[in-house]
């Protein structure tokens, strides 16, 4: 832990990822400090989501360095070599990296509270009563007090996504990844999810957010990184990247979405 304090919480250098012949990531470099909010923007197919999925090893990278909390993602360094981790060790790594998906992916056969309790009980081995108590707190925190016993199919998209955020928070992750968390929502439900995320940012939760919500990025992010064709083309303070883009590609993209 000691080395993490000094270095960035998430560090990527020259990350490559291929799907067959298609090179989706062509050397992504990015670093995010603890307590920081980083928004990844860019056209679809630019590799934003793939990069996010590499960060918790839902995808394995093909090259480069990727570290979370100072540890290589998916590998353990020993005698100057990187040994691939077994699936069970990857699982304990993932427990510290929370993820919120575009399509919520709540467990359909469990109530909202059971969804939030599943990780703490099954992975962290917390007693059920304690996990339930904490689960109720978290659901209240995302504005869903009273919805504990509802099944996902009985909740709106915005409510489901807030349960998903509570489920990720229940693991007390070091960093929270958001993969287009509002893209699958009806327009009038986007705000309630962004509000929850804004509150988390105020509480200094480290977050990496793939998003098309430029207003949110401008207002909440500490860093905005613009990705295109598998590379981080431009990154910096939101005011600079969004307000005064240096590259032609970023300017072209922003002119279409703003």
């Amino acid at each position, binding site marked *: 832990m000691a080395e993490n304090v000094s270095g960035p919480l998430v560090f990527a250098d020259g990350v490559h990822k291929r799907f067959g012949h298609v090179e989706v990531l062509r050397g992504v470099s990015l670093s995010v400090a603890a307590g920081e909010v980083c928004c990844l923007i860019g056209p679809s197919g630019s590799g934003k989501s793939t990069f996010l999925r590499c960060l918790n090893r839902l995808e394995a990278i093909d090259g480069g360095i990727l570290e979370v909390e100072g540890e290589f993602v998916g590998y353990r360094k020993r005698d100057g070599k990187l040994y691939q981790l077994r699936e069970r060790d990857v699982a304990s790594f993932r427990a510290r990296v*929370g*993820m919120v998906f575009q399509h919520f*992916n709540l*467990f*359909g056969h469990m109530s909202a509270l059971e969804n939030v309790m599943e990780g703490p009980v099954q*992975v962290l081995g917390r007693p059920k009563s304690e996990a339930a108590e904490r689960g109720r707190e978290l659901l209240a925190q995302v504005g869903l007090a009273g919805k504990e016993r509802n*099944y996902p199919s009985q909740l709106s998209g915005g409510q489901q996504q807030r349960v998903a955020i509570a*489920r990720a928070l229940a693991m007390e992750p070091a960093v929270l990844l958001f993969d287009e968390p509002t893209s699958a929502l009806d327009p009038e439900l986007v705000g309630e999810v962004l509000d929850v995320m804004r509150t988390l940012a105020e509480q200094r939760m480290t977050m990496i957010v793939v998003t098309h919500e430029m207003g949110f990025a401008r207002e909440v992010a500490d860093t905005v990184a613009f990705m295109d064709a598998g590379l981080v083309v431009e990154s910096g303070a939101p005011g600079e990247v969004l307000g005064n883009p240096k590259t032609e590609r970023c300017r072209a993209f922003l002119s279409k979405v703003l």
Partner: protein
Amino acid sequence: MSQASPETVTRAEPELVPLRHYGRWVYGVVALLVLGYIVWLFTDSAIDWRTVGSFLTVGVMLSGLGNTVLVSIVAMLLGILLGVLFALMRLSANPVTRTIAWLYVWLFRGTPVYLQLLMWFNLAIVLPTIGIPGIGSMPTIELITPFVAAVLGLGINEGAYVAEIVRGGIASVDRGQREAAMAIGMRPMRIMRRIVLPQAMRVVVPPLGNDFVNLLKTSAMASAISYTELLNRAQQIYFVNSKVMELLIVAAFWYLVVVSVFSIGQYFLERRFNRGDTGSRATLLETLWATMRSSRRRNPIGGRNG
């Protein structure tokens, strides 16, 4: 044709006349007549209905019925156990495991279950003793009783089918469910047990119920290896008293009863695994009532086309 145009309906508010199905009445009457003729044929035939009645609840038949249910349940449990195991093996990342599972399904689905029953029953011919090294052994003929042969034959065969059903069920669970479970740090086996399998059940249970009903009837083949199930008992009796048709009718009656009872059980199982689906809280009676109503008068608004 032109009468069906919407303008004629909106303005003058004419009376709505639902489509009358006169054909169905004719059809129903004809069906009743045919049924009546068949019943008359059989009552008028040489069937001795008093014999049917007297053997219906006789102890030998009832114990045969009990054996049928017993062997079916035990074989089904074995089938489910093997089926889940081999379905998981089939989805394994390990190519050796995958191949073993594929071979199992190929072998036991590719040969008649009747033949498999005969092979298990005659195992002693080629394998006089069965033993585990270091523990002991015993003569095959003592170990493989008709019951054991029937359970092995039916159960292992069933397992091959269950494996395919479970594999399909697992494939039906959205990939995102597994990813979400991975993202909170769950390990593969736990993801399977806690997240994937419970949701696969919804897809798995209906065909599994059908399979069990099938198995109940297929278990009649065990009469060929002298397992004293329902059909075997009927045969034993008619070999003596020559009331062939009467005893077959008794057996048919009990098969129908058992199959009906388990179909109701299947309904409750399906309901159990539908948790989390809205609108799945109807009771059995409500469902039966709804089914009867919809078959009596198909409601076009209900979205089911007749």
